[in-house]
């Protein structure tokens, strides 16, 4: 009974959120993940929290919302960045969880350019 509080079981939501966060920082179009200011997008686990990624594990599928700050790139639409994010998320999720990931919502909360806040 007491083991419930210090369970060695990994929470799939927080594990997936951390893996996705690790993969997304490698995307050139993504400056950083950002929880956003209104209704924070984050995944919460025991003693930790991943900002900018909300993973909800449902019985038949996994629902993911990603919120990020985009890098300004005039040659690419923000929607193509969003599609790239979706590919990364579903790629990572397939390795970790045997459930379809749908939908993957992408929120672009801000934009940053080189040498400018």
């Amino acid at each position: 009974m007491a083991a419930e509080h210090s369970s060695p079981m990994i929470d799939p939501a927080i594990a997936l959120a951390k893996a996705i966060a690790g993969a997304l920082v490698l995307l050139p179009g993504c400056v950083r993940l950002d929880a956003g200011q209104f209704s924070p997008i984050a995944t919460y686990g025991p003693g930790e929290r991943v900002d900018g990624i909300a993973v909800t594990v449902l019985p038949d599928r996994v629902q993911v919302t990603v919120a990020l700050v985009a890098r300004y790139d005039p040659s690419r639409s923000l929607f193509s960045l969003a599609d790239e994010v979706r590919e990364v998320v579903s790629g990572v999720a397939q390795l970790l969880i045997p459930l379809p990931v749908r939908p993957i919502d992408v929120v672009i909360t801000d934009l940053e350019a080189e040498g400018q806040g």
Partner: protein
Amino acid sequence: MVEQRPERPTTQDRSVGERSGSSAVERVASSVPSMTSGSTSLTRPRATELITENGRTTIADTVVAKIAAIAAREIPGVHELVPHSAASAIAGLTQRVTGDVRTAGVRVDIGEQEAVIDVRMVVEYGISIPQVAEAVRRNIMNRIQGLTGLSVREVNIEVTDLFFPEDVAAEAARPAESRGA
């Protein structure tokens, strides 16, 4: 009257469209996003959305404003952008209350399909102001359309001052306290 009103099924009024028995006044109020005073409009940032089969892509209004600001600065001859008012210091607050976004001299008003952009800027002395203004307008429209898919109906440009590059060269040689700022 009710039949003549164009139906625009968007995320905001989709649920309203289902209710056929609602009065005309109710429907008008509900189809204009700025008039809806529900809690969702305060907790959720106003944004541009694209709904695909794999999920929704949301672009915050701040992003549109920043694209406009960067696009304006990309044009040679634009010296800097000027904040719209002293109140821009508390822009974060006004943005939350009124729903308009001010980012460093850019004001953005985004409707269902189109955006209106107001820009205030200082240009360098010696350039053709109409030419530069037109270039800024075109670049803002192209960048916003290209990056967010949003079409820009108008870009209103206000040139508030001239910048003389020679002044800076002279001031750089003088001590800092003599600058009027």
